[in-house]
């Protein structure tokens, strides 16, 4: 069945002539269609990271607490007492745009499998969403579908969805971002990896039967959209959260039996990438009998079986003497488990179908020689309409705050998170709107973890390096605010087409920003994901490097949220200069561009460590909220809304708009009862601080400036979603 590989076929597989020449060199002959298909998915951007590998390597990935950095299904950090946290974030942008419900659902399913593949039970999910302009005709359905998809999947599996972000901007009209993060708990001595070992060991396939789902999903995620591709869509993958739940429970049960040598979920590029990655890590060969692959549809070809992206499947290498118990456990859970091949010492992947050898590929060369590009980059021109402002125009500040609070991006997201089961598993201490990060108790212990996801694309567009630095710093600050010790991050890099120099510039800049911030804050990257070609008809998304952070709260009593007691004082920590460029305030004045605020990492660490000290070593801290977009004004309003309590603020400043809306970094609002003790400590630690007001009454009252009732704040804040979607 030798087929001529035509130019058209190469094009359909997204393989350029240079790459094809490498394929010819590796194979020493012309590949057949099956082999070419395998190359195409393995060397797709999605699986090979060919445009970013060179730069990702520069990220700091080690540290005292790092158990496993990038390279495995997910990253792992140590949280003491033989406990470890497994986490990763992954994008499902393209599929979610095509079919929002299934795309988002399968995104959640995929990331959870990455976590439980390693032996961890997922204990929290987060998601970071970017949609187009609410007025765009597609946005509403996308929002509805994505949120329902995320909710239905996580709710059904029984993992609490505890946090995330949602941001609207016309820039995402035709390329929404759906990044899902999952966090799991494992005993440090019970971690499972994906390195195949033991010649002759059986390869077991478990889970859903293979269909023709999403064939070429991985190559789709590696190509630009056009209006045309929206019509000629490849088949969509449908998620089955029920099977996921069965897979989760059965795999964790089997993991107690000392039966598994290596295990890997079948994610992007399904059977191909899972078997290749396992074998290449273990330097072995693989023999697969494709007739054995459980199929949902009739007459599936080897090509389709190898490239299918049917969800809810796992591949594992089992100790031969444990086959029986393996089958028993999967049978108990009602899942298909089939031996589909064996490990060999050939170093090759040999694919058999109907007793015929239908494909042979060398494993190591295919993995090691996968393309790695140093794509050219160029600094894009500055946004034109930005002019440096000497002074801001006179403006009604009350109106601006009200507008921010009632706009899509800073409205209460309760319409979204009430669709997520955030209380299942019984360990949720804070979810969504009650703290800067979600806080989850480690079951049956006195400690907790804190998790958050962050990115401000407006900053990143203006300055991808600074924007990325801020994203990392903000995630660190969010964790600190909850009383946690920040430990490590996962990153999800969403960008446009890397073959364009301006985009490549953004990618490189953002990665170097992440690198800098991670080194400064001793906050390494342990896992991540890259999503490129988020571009339609030549228009790219804003650079959106989303950062997912995880920290440890050593004792439950350190956990801090937005709580305010009556009459307690509000202290502002950190330097306030009134940076307005790239701020929300300027956005509302339609002043775009300009540089985001700088992060002074010395200051960042000093302030953060002080807040941490207060949370852990004193009883002074009642509540805490970091200051980010929208400045002090928005942070205060959020505190009032969360507590349904008023605050009185005394302003001494000349430029109230700078004080209220400036977005200087490294700052916190602290709710403190014992003023003297606090001030002594702050002074001793050389911390810039100011008592700006106190908790009282039923108004957010900026004395001598304006005042809004808490009722009005609540109403303003909850109205947008109601009007938009209910």
């Amino acid at each position, binding site marked *: 069945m030798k087929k001529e590989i035509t130019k058209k076929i190469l094009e359909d597989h997204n393989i350029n002539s240079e790459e094809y020449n490498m394929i010819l060199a590796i194979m020493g002959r012309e590949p057949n269609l099956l082999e070419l298909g395998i190359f195409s998915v393995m060397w797709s951007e999605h699986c090979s990271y060919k445009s970013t590998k060179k730069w990702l390597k520069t990220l700091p990935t080690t540290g005292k607490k790092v158990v496993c950095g990038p390279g495995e299904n997910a990253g792992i950090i140590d949280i003491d007492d033989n406990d470890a946290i497994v986490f990763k974030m992954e994008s499902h942008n393209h599929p979610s745009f095509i*079919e929002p419900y299934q795309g988002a659902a399968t995104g959640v399913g995929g990331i959870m499998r990455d976590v439980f593949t390693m032996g961890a039970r997922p204990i929290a999910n987060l998601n970071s969403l970017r949609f187009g302009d609410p007025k765009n005709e597609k946005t509403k359905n996308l929002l509805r579908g994505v949120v329902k998809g995320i909710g239905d999947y996580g709710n059904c599996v029984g993992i609490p969805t505890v946090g995330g972000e949602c941001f609207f901007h016309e820039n995402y009209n035709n390329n929404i971002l759906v990044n899902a993060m999952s966090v799991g708990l494992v005993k440090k001595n019970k971690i499972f990896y994906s390195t195949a070992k033991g010649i002759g060991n059986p390869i077991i396939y478990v889970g859903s039967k293979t*269909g023709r*789902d999403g064939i070429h999903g991985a190559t789709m995620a590696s190509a630009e959209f056009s209006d045309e591709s929206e019509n000629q869509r490849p088949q*969509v993958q*449908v998620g089955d959260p*029920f*099977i996921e739940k069965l897979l989760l429970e059965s795999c964790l049960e089997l993991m107690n039996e000392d039966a598994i040598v290596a295990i890997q979920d079948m994610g992007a590029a399904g059977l191909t990438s899972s078997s290749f990655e396992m074998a290449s890590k273990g330097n072995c060969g693989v023999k697969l009998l494709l007739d054995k692959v459980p199929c949902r549809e009739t007459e599936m070809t080897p090509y389709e079986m190898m490239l299918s992206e*049917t969800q809810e499947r796992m591949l594992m290498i089992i100790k031969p003497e444990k086959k029986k118990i393996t089958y028993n456990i999967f049978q108990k859970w009602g899942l298909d488990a089939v031996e589909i091949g064996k490990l060999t010492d050939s170093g090759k992947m040999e694919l058999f179908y109907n007793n015929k050898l239908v494909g042979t590929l060398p494993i190591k060369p295919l993995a090691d020689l996968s393309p790695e590009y140093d794509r050219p980059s160029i600094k894009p021109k500055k946004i034109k309409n930005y002019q440096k402002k000497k002074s801001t125009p006179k403006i009604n500040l009350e109106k601006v705050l009200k507008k921010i609070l009632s706009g899509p991006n800073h409205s209460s997201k309760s319409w979204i998170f009430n669709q997520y089961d955030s209380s299942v598993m019984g360990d949720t201490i804070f979810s969504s709107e009650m703290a800067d990060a979600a806080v989850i108790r480690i079951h049956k212990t006195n400690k907790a973890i804190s998790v958050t996801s962050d990115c401000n694309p407006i900053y990143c567009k203006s300055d991808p390096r600074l924007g990325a630095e801020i994203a990392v710093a903000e995630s660190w600050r969010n964790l600190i605010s909850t009383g946690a010790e920040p430990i490590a991050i996962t990153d999800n890099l969403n960008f446009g087409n890397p073959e364009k120099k301006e985009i490549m510039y953004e990618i490189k800049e953002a990665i170097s920003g992440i690198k800098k911030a991670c080194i400064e804050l001793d906050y390494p990257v342990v896992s991540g994901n890259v999503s490129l070609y988020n571009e339609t008809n030549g228009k790219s998304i804003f650079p959106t490097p989303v950062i997912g952070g995880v920290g440890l709260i050593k004792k439950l009593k350190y956990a801090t949220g937005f709580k305010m007691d009556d009459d307690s004082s509000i202290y502002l920590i950190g330097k306030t200069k009134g940076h307005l460029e790239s701020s929300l305030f300027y956005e509302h004045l339609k002043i775009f561009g300009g540089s985001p605020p700088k992060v002074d990492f010395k200051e960042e660490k000093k302030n953060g460590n002080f807040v941490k000290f207060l949370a852990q070593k004193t009883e002074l801290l009642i509540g805490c909220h970091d200051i980010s977009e929208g400045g002090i004004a928005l942070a205060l309003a959020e505190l009032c809304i969360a507590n349904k309590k008023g605050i009185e603020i005394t302003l001494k400043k000349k430029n109230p708009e700078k004080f209220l809306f400036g977005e200087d970094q490294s700052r916190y609002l602290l709710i403190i009862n014992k003023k003297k003790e606090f001030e002594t400590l702050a002074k001793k630690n050389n911390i810039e601080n100011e008592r700006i007001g106190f908790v009282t009454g039923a108004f957010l009252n900026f004395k001598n400036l304006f005042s809004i009732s808490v009722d009005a704040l609540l109403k303003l804040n909850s109205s947008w979603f109601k009007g938009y979607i209910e």
Partner: protein
Amino acid sequence: MIFRVYVNFKDGILDPEAEAIKQTIANMGLNSVKNLVKGKFFDIEVEDKKNYLSEIEKISKDLLANPIIENFKIVKK
């Protein structure tokens, strides 16, 4: 006038619900069943206005069925 719109999954699209039902039927020991396919229907009552047919079509395409994964068929009742 009533039109019935049938909506079901396209061939090859996984229908987890139908799978679960089939499994349950087997577990119930009912073994004459070979296969089961699931779908939805909508009975739309319309007034005899000029454009009712095009409206039904629009509703089917834009609202009742998700053309990415589902087929629809309109039948007069």
